[in-house]
């Protein structure tokens, strides 16, 4: 069906690439400018420097390193936790004979329809009651499970042939052994998809961390911290955008590494 491709197609495609990239490029450029020149369109090469980055990492006035660390720790705990909890549950729903699992799975499906913001108030109260506001517990423990990822995991394990189990049973493997030795090694694509989306969701999230770190700047995650930085240092765009890029770069690296899984996961599941 593809015959002549009009050059106009390339013009449009490249044109939109520019639209997609310019904000990033402009931010990179600005992050190297000195504060006095952030609004200058053209800054001489000799005035560009890593000053903003150095400032973020060394200035005692900004808890940037602390926020970065918080973000990394929280994202890793949440990602690993989800990986374990969702994979186990998805596997049980897909492959194990359990009385009552059908109705239980329906409950998981039903809660997927409810927007997270609905439970903002109860969570705020519950976590406040538990003393989990303003520390890592509140940022991690409530977010270790995702009905959607359980759904994905179940779909994945349902797609594997039945013979796998039967052969393993004959070999004398128990339920735990079959999961660990037969199914888990084959579940790499599932793991990749889960890691990417959970990490991305957590790394970028703003609403819950803002709510759950209210008044405790030492546990701010990077997005919350950068948002507060903008409030305090209005006009220091070089510093702010340097922070923005440091928030963005890890995600872009992960995106490049897992590009194919990202796109596949997106296309099949339709989630962000």
């Amino acid at each position, binding site marked *: 069906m593809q015959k002549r491709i009009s050059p106009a197609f390339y013009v449009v495609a490249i044109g*939109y690439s520019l639209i997609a990239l310019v*904000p*990033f490029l402009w931010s990179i450029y600005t992050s190297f400018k000195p504060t006095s020149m952030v*609004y200058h369109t053209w800054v001489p090469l000799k005035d560009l420097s890593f000053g903003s980055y150095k400032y973020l990492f060394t200035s005692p006035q900004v808890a940037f390193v602390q926020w970065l660390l918080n973000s990394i720790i929280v994202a890793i705990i949440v990602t690993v936790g989800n990986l374990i909890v969702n994979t*186990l549950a998805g596997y049980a729903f897909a492959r194990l004979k359990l009385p009552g699992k059908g109705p239980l799975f329906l409950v998981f499906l039903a809660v997927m329809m409810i927007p997270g913001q609905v*439970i*903002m108030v109860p969570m*705020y*109260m519950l976590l406040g009651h538990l003393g989990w506001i303003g520390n890592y517990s509140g940022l991690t423990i409530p977010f270790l499970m995702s009905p959607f990822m359980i759904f994905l995991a179940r779909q994945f394990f349902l797609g594997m042939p039945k013979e796998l189990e039967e052969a393993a049973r004959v070999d004398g493997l128990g339920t735990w052994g079959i999961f660990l030795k037969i199914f888990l090694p084959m579940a790499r694509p599932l793991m990749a998809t889960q890691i990417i989306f959970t990490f991305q969701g957590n790394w970028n999230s703003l609403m819950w961390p803002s709510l759950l770190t209210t008044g405790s700047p030492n546990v701010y995650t990077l997005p919350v911290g950068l948002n507060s930085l903008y409030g305090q240092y209005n006009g220091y765009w070089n510093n702010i955008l340097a922070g923005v890029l440091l928030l963005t770069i890890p995600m872009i690296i992960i995106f490049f590494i897992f590009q194919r899984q990202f796109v596949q996961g997106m296309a099949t599941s339709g989630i962000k």
Partner: protein
Amino acid sequence: MKLSAWKKSKLEQAMVGYMFLLPAVVALCVFLVGPIFYAIYVSFFRYNSLNVSQKQFIGLENFVHLFHDPMFGRALLNTSIYAVVVVPVQTAIALFLALIVNSIKGKTFFRVVYYLPTVTSTVATSLMFMFIFEPQGLLNSFLKLFGIHGPNYFNSPTFALPAIIALAVWSSVGQFMIIYLAGIQDLSDEVYEAAALDGATGWKLLRHITLPLLRRTTFLNVVLSLIGCFQVFDQMYVISGGTGGPLNSTLSVVLDLYNQATSGNMGYASAIGIALFIIILILTLIQKLIFEREEA
């Protein structure tokens, strides 16, 4: 003997199975189902967390108040305008780009580039756009070349929401383009060959073959996009500094909910959350109905 071994293995499977489910079920009960019921419960109360002793059952009063509250009305209006513009614009651009990218070389490159804004944190993209939309920022410098004097976008009640809309479209077009791209690649070549035999080309092919075949993908995209739009929070929160200003022009439903919750109006904030859920549910059902009627 054999039977009892079989029974034993069944029991073992059930034991291990429930262990597998246990963490997920505990999390589900404590952090989802429990809070959902509590949200419904507390929405029937006048309940300020700063003054707990004043907790009082008021029936549906919180929900009635939603209809009279100008703040909520404004938030719903802003969110609706936002959704009404973002959903079609973003879906159209996504489809357009997917069709173009699908027919040229360098698919992977364009896919990656278009998807970059989507993997980037909304705090990052919001701050990037705030700088570009500054009174003396990149956009206004560019407009100046054409003799246009651009406004101070995010300080203007007229321009703040449109600027956020532009940001939203820019940041999520890539996501919907990829879903479209997958949809296009699933279309079978036979249909096209048959259509080509019938002499259908170019625009006709697109209008009568490709678009109808992509209807399912479009439905998925529109539903996802609409749900996302009604939950918009991050951009408004960052750009307005949490206030929804200037003059409430960027107050979204979720930002209103957030501000009510953090100022202690727990009953009312829960009512907003439940209203949001009902709105999203109704919109999704309406779309499903429209879609199914067209299918039939």
